[in-house]
């Protein structure tokens, strides 16, 4: 262990320490309920991890799905991301199966009346699972096509229709449903209703069989058929006709939160890969020292940093620039799962398709993680849906860049990982100021020095060209062009690089390690240079060949320090590292 002279030992999320210890205890030891072997066995049997979820309830995890003003612990959105990440780095099925309660409940936190909020808070704190019933067969992401009806009835509403596939439709006690109360395809014709399945008369609701999915095989991805189910007026969430608007606001919060799923998957993938490349030899050399392995492993670390920078930063921008969340949330939800899919594919290339020959990790753990993670880019608004949302902001993004508009102070406050964050303000449906994080990139790059400054300058030039293209992209009413989707992907990378630069500037002084250990992530701006190098190559900018050796440096740090993170060592799970890589630390 290296001597610690920095703030690495002070956790960024002290509020999660007790939970982390509880989860660690549930993960290790013989017969542990949340052990890696148990997770793989449940997946093989396609069984819901009910015991694990009960343990999480007992540990108090559901409190983080409830606002603190209602007696819960949801204060910082980035803290919620980190909680989801802590679950996901063990098992995505568990994380997806448990955290869906936040997705199911968040509309009520945004639009419900006070009494309804208090009732729901009590139920969630007591461990009741809540589902979010948006999707219907055959129209996927097209919410305006919602065909489930909530027709007026003497005692409120009468619900008919079909919701499928819905996460936890069968297991959930409560379901927050989107249903039609007005005319077809009328945006004001949809309403949200929070129904209690257990109180519906027999024969008015039927749970549909579980979908057989490629991954998260134990998850309850099923559906509901509503056969004239009665719903009282008190089930309405917000005014009638406000359902779509509430959903679009809620999705901004959930899209940022679920980046924690990808961050956890990235942690898990790199932990397993690190374990293999450190232990195995290939043609006379440790695998980790084979040149192409070293390079590729470092590139995956850079992807992990890019993803983490975006997830954590978006979680904090949720508080400081909520008026830009329509863009920020879409960027985060499109970018993070994509970057982590790439990371996992890169690790898979290094591991080969066989089971991990380590003996300490259950065979099939990596393949499971790979299958499981594919869902993250699909649900809660697919990559396509999110990219379309960004494309609709092209004019304001181009204008914001030209005028360097936006709240630089709010960006700076989000970037400082130690700064306290206030409550989340009102969420609009479109951003009128573009994306301050990207718009303040030139100013931030001017504060860099050394090689990172050169990379940052090249990035600003590339971003300038991109915004030139954005300004010229034709705005279409129906259907975003393929070229526009490509522009959005480039914009996502600019956002990732901007997040990295801001986070670096705000935290590097506190995080730089002492002179006795010049070999960490933060030394020589190592992780920042890697993210910028990766971004430049993704934007098609030529970078000097020697620049790529920063990935080799990351690989060396990975071997010595464990999986990459921007957070403090104290935020990493001691147990998660200990069970695979303890020998090298």
């Amino acid at each position: 262990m290296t001597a610690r002279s920095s703030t690495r030992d002070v956790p960024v999320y002290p509020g999660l320490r007790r939970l982390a210890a509880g989860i660690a205890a549930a993960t290790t030891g013989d017969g542990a309920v949340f052990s890696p072997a148990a997770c793989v066995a449940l997946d093989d049997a396609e069984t819901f991890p009910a015991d694990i979820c009960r343990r999480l309830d007992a540990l108090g995890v559901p409190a983080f799905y409830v606002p603190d003003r209602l007696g819960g612990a949801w204060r910082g959105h980035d803290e919620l991301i980190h909680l989801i990440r802590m679950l996901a780095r063990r098992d995505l099925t568990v994380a997806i199966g448990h955290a869906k309660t936040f997705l199911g409940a968040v509309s009520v936190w945004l639009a419900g009346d006070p009494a309804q909020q208090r009732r729901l808070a009590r139920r969630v704190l007591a461990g009741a699972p809540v589902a979010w019933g948006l999707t219907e067969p055959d129209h996927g992401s097209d919410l305006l096509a919602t065909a489930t009806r909530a027709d007026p009835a003497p005692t409120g509403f009468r619900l008919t229709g079909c919701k499928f596939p819905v996460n936890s439709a069968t297991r959930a006690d409560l379901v927050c449903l989107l249903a039609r109360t007005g005319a077809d395809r009328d945006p004001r014709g949809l309403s949200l209703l929070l129904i209690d399945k257990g109180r519906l008369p027999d024969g008015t609701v039927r749970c549909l069989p579980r979908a057989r999915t490629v991954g998260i095989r134990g998850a309850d991805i099923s559906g509901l058929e509503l056969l004239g189910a009665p719903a009282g007026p008190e089930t309405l969430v917000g005014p009638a006709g406000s359902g779509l608007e509430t959903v679009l606001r809620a999705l901004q919060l959930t899209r940022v939160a679920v980046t924690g799923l990808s961050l956890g998957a990235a942690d898990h993938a790199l932990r397993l890969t690190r374990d293999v490349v450190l232990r195995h030899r290939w043609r006379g050399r440790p695998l980790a020292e084979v040149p192409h392995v070293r390079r590729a492993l470092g590139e995956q670390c850079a992807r992990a940093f890019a993803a983490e920078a975006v997830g954590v930063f978006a979680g904090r921008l949720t508080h400081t620039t909520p008026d830009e969340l329509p863009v920020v949330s879409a960027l985060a939800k499109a970018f993070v799962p994509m970057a982590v899919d790439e990371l996992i594919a890169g690790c898979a290339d290094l591991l080969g398709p066989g089971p991990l020959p380590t003996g300490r990790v259950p065979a099939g753990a990596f393949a499971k993680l790979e299958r499981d993670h594919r869902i993250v880019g699909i649900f809660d608004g697919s990559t396509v849906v999110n990219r379309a949302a960004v494309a609709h902001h092209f004019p304001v993004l181009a204008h914001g860049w030209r005028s360097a508009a936006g709240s630089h102070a709010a960006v700076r406050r989000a970037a400082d990982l130690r700064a306290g964050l206030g409550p989340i303000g009102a969420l609009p449906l479109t951003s009128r100021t573009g994306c301050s994080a990207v718009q303040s990139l030139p100013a931030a790059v001017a504060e860099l020095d050394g090689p990172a400054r050169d990379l940052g300058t090249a990035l600003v030039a590339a971003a300038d060209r991109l915004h030139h293209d954005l300004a010229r992209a034709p705005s279409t009413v129906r259907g975003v062009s393929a070229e526009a989707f490509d522009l959005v992907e480039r914009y996502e990378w600019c956002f990732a690089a901007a997040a990295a630069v801001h986070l670096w500037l705000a935290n590097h002084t506190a995080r730089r390690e002492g002179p006795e250990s010049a070999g960490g992530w933060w030394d020589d701006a190592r992780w920042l240079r890697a993210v910028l190098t990766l971004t430049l190559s993704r934007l098609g900018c030529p970078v000097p060949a020697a620049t790529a050796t920063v990935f080799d440096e990351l690989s060396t740090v990975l071997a010595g320090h464990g999986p990459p993170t921007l957070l403090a060592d104290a935020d990493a799970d001691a147990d998660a590292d200990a069970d695979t890589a303890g020998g090298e630390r």
Partner: protein
Amino acid sequence: MTPGGTARVAELERLLSDLWEAGGPLPYTAVLAADERAELCAEGRRLLHRAGFTAEFVPAALGGRLARLDELVAAARTVCRRDPTLALGHGLGSFLAAATVWTSGTADQRRRVAALVLAGGTVATVCPDLAHGDDPYRGTVTAHPDGTGNLRVSGRADAVPDGGRADALVLLADVGRPADADGAGLAHLLVDTATLPPGGVTRPARPATAGLRGLALGGVRFRDCPVPGSALLGTPGGGADAAARAAQVTRACLAGTLPGALDTGLRTVLRFATRRRLYGQGMDALPAVRAALADAFADLLILDAVGTVTARALHVLPEQAGAPASAALYTVGRRLTAAMDRLSRVLGAHSYLRDGEYGIFQKVRRDAALAVSGYAAPTTCLRTVLRYLPGLADRTPAGTPPPVAGQVYRDGAAVPELSFDRLTTRAGRVDALAGALHHGRRAAAGADPELHRLATAFCAELAGLGRQGARLRPPDLGPHARPEALALAARYATVLAASACLNVWAHRPRDGFLGDPAWAVAALHRLAGAAGLPAGAAPGPAAAYRPALYRELTDRFAGRRTFDLADRPPAG
């Protein structure tokens, strides 16, 4: 393809029919059910067995129907379009093992294996990248003479289809002193599993793989097991060279076969997009959906050009096949996986469901991914290619490019008989497949300015690779090659793919769609983008040529024709 070959593939199409045909002989439900049970699809197996399908993989001189590798590939791809696991588990899998027998076996060994395969038996070999990455010296078994004329075999071979329960096994073994870094003590064994004594062989269990589940890639462990001395295949010490020569055949054939999975992936997504309504209109009206489908079609044409041209090159240019075969499999593996990933975004949640009429997508995607990582690991292929790069400039002089072997680009042209003896791991004096770029560029000059611009960019890329290849030093040609060196090999593979597409276009002037520059421009533009060439950066050409590709694609979809170069009609 000869008329006979075309007729055989048509018969196979008729036999297997349409995956979505209600009451058809091989419905998608049967393929998915077999995958769930991790078994080879019994219905498909029965159909193929009844048709004597395995004869496609036995040389005509030995009583089979294998005269041309492009025909073998067309047949195997036809099966792969229904079920990649079935393609590898019935016919092609035996061929991957038997190729070593066809290239290195004695007359008697060839006859025995031919008889076995013709009778519907199976020969298995290690799935190379699954078992040991690109390190053939790891995980091999040992075989030593016991003085009675027998060999005693010990050790373990991983990742053998069907857990090594095949009728015969082809395994690389250490037959001399312990294998050194050059593999000098290696040779192949042809083991007749029926004659093994009980207890001599065990089959350790192996966890299921994510794809190709029906192949049951288990291991085989030998414990001082006697096999007759006649099991030795090839010369002691010649194993590594034999494996490398056989790999030229098997990699080319895999590169030609696997694109069948993309045909099915694309067909499934088209089926979905044409039936689904989104935002008040048909999903197939969305411009980004059309672009994704047209791009996948362009990818499939690229993969087929690469696979088919390489298969024919083994007949026409056998001395030059070493680099192209590995480059082809690299290109096919990388682009196939990426194309399926992009298509999955159009399919959305349906790409994640294991049943229903679109459920076949996730199955072929998993199968293709495992076939690529198990049989075509990118760095394995690139390391082979790298060895040929130092002399590239001399083999592809721009001033006097080598003559073009037109038969490799034309469908139906006669090709010389396949000559396994002429395959070599030595680099030849010319590289006709890469050099053909210069001829293609001249053909494009008078036909299409955009195509000419792209062809010119690739000629410059080839020249640049020649210069950089000449600077490679010995450490880069071995297992510890720098990533920058491997990147050169990847760029060479892309140049070969561009040359294949350009010359298929140039050699088919009277072939309506293939003779039109549209597809060639789209293909070269995509390849240039992937190679990071400036010519591939502007989105203009892609946008301009997608409508023509999309039109052709939807015409073929409506007519149930194949999406590859052959544009085959459906059965009957």
